[in-house]
């Protein structure tokens, strides 16, 4: 996405994030229209605008997983909303009421809130910024993750996952302890990545970046989400798996998630409307899940999960694999156990995260 307009809320116009971003932007873009607004909510739907606004809610949130499926208990550090990348399947398009690419510019307020919370030294926090936006897609401009990484150095009880589809490793300069940061990349079949992930780095670029991080002592995370059903999916996912095996080593993986393509009716309508090439929604045989979202009929999901899990197991992964929003039935059918057997998924992932140290 090319940024042609920047909308800044008056109250945050002097914030460090805004000043630094405008400076960086002026170096690469000649004509950027800057507008100052008083409205506290993003109410415009400009497709080439970036909003710097003040966030007035809690920056630290629970993942909005429903109780009907097993959620990993991920905690979100809310740095912004929407994403400059254009993945056809992106659930954010149906999740937020607005489509404005937004950065919460009052980072100092965020640090205040987080420092109060993270000072509870007896608690361990596994958190990330890649739920409501891509963690790194705007890093070149805002340097948000670098600031966050620097801030977290004082809190060894916190591990931050930076989930992305781009390659930006600039944040590494600020890392004191690599165990505190989990760089993470989304994976998909080669075909889906090529046709549906506009604006993202190629799978190869992502894996090369992951390799650099591993070599630097970081553990990395991979996320196969959404896994998509289409004719020839086996070949497509196999190619990706082979690339992973070529670039990475299983001992360098902190954890790897698998999630099937799913979404509200609104997302399906959006894809039909805006992405006529998005053929996969016509190939999948969908049911309405317990959470009201459409998802692939269970045996077809299990078939896909099993295909990927079997190969990852042979490679050397085991309990590092987990499902995003799946039932006990699916866990048992594919992995042979349920989150309960692991002592709860959230605890299990926390153990994986913090035993790194």
């Amino acid at each position, binding site marked *: 996405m090319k940024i042609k307009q920047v909308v800044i809320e008056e109250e945050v116009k002097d914030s460090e994030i805004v000043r630094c971003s405008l400076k960086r932007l002026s170096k690469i873009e000649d004509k950027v229209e800057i507008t100052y607004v008083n409205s506290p909510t993003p109410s415009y739907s400009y497709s080439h605008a970036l909003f710097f606004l003040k966030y007035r809610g809690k920056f630290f949130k629970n993942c909005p997983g429903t109780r009907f499926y097993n959620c990993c208990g991920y905690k979100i550090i809310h740095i912004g909303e929407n994403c400059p990348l254009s993945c056809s399947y992106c659930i954010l398009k149906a999740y937020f009421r607005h489509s404005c690419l937004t950065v919460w510019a009052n980072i100092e307020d965020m640090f205040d809130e987080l420092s109060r919370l993270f000072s509870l030294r007896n608690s361990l926090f596994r958190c990330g910024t890649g739920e409501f936006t891509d963690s790194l897609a705007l890093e070149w401009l805002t340097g948000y993750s670098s600031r966050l990484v620097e801030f977290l150095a004082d809190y060894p009880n916190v591990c931050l996952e930076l989930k992305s589809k781009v390659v930006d490793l600039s944040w590494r300069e600020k890392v004191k302890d690599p165990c505190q940061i989990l760089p993470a990349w989304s994976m998909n079949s080669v075909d889906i990545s090529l046709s549906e992930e506009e604006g993202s780095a190629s799978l190869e670029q992502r894996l090369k970046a992951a390799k650099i991080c591993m070599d630097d002592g970081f553990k990395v995370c991979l996320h196969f989400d959404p896994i998509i059903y289409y004719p020839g999916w086996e070949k497509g996912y196999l190619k990706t798996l082979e690339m992973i095996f070529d670039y990475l080593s299983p001992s360098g993986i902190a954890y790897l998630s698998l999630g099937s393509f799913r979404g509200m009716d609104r997302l399906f309508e959006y894809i039909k409307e805006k992405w006529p090439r998005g*053929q996969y929604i016509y190939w999948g045989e969908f049911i309405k899940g317990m959470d009201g979202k459409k*998802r692939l009929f269970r045996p077809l999901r299990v078939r896909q999960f099993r295909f990927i899990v079997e190969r990852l197991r042979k490679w050397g992964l085991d309990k590092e694999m987990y499902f995003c929003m799946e039932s006990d039935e699916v866990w048992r059918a594919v992995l042979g156990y349920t989150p309960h057997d692991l002592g709860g998924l959230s605890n299990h992932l926390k153990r994986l995260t913090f035993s790194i140290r």
Partner: protein
Amino acid sequence: MNRNSFFVLTLSPHQIECSAPWLFFKREPSKLTYWCIENKIQPPVGVCRNDEGESFFLLWGYDIVEGCKRLGREVTCYVMELSLWERAVVHLKAEGHLGREPSDFIYCIRFFLDRGRKDKIESILAPFLSRREIEFLLKWGHLPSSWDVLLQTKHLSLDCIDILKKFKADELEEIYPLFELLSWGRNKAMELLDGLLEISRRGNVSLSDVCRELKEICFRDLSPADKISRILEKIRNIRSPYLFRFERRLWDRLSQMRLNKGWTWNISPGFETDNLSLHVRLDKEYGVRELVKDLAGIKERWENFYKWYCGVLGGRKEIDED
């Protein structure tokens, strides 16, 4: 004549042309209309003249003109000077209340659209229709006009327009007979259209072939409701063949358990869990003793069934395996 003025004229009803394109609503004369004409207290009708000033065209008051024709009376007319689209506006102001359903306004929508007056439609129709109805009718106005009859005969609901507009012109031609031959309720029509659209976009079977098969069902010796059920079944089969085959086999296998009539199975939504529940109503005739006996009778079949059910859903068994 000044554009902003009008004058009153008495005309023979045969001098008034009553088939102009802006006459969207025509009411037949009622007893009250006749009584008024007979007592010479009928209100004047509105007319306008063509450019040459030779013919008079009706703007409102069709029932009075018709009544006068039948009673052999003359008609008192307001003669107005109006542009073409203004004639439609004046007609609607006087007679728009006769429209009972949004579909009654489709000709009116087309009239304004054809004359490049889309911008005026919302304000003109606001007294008669909701904003949503106007929005849907405007979209409908872009379908071929042959579709209007389906709307007016209630073979198809206006709510379907958002799906209909996604079809290409040649696809619309293919699906038209399905609605011409059967009258569809809103939800079932949506299901059919959604299915057809998804099948056509997937592109592995031709929409034309699918519609041919569906049309065949329309001509079978079945009730309209049964025809609709068969058509939707066919659509589900083509759209989601694996899921369809599973559901079919599931109900076959459940019915093979020959349960008491009062028993009903409840299955987890979307088959997302392995849980099934059986609901039984106990009464004087059917008590615990009968229930236990029936359960014992299906024990072995149930165990086989449940193994199959969990096996297929867990991806360990094929649907046709036992």
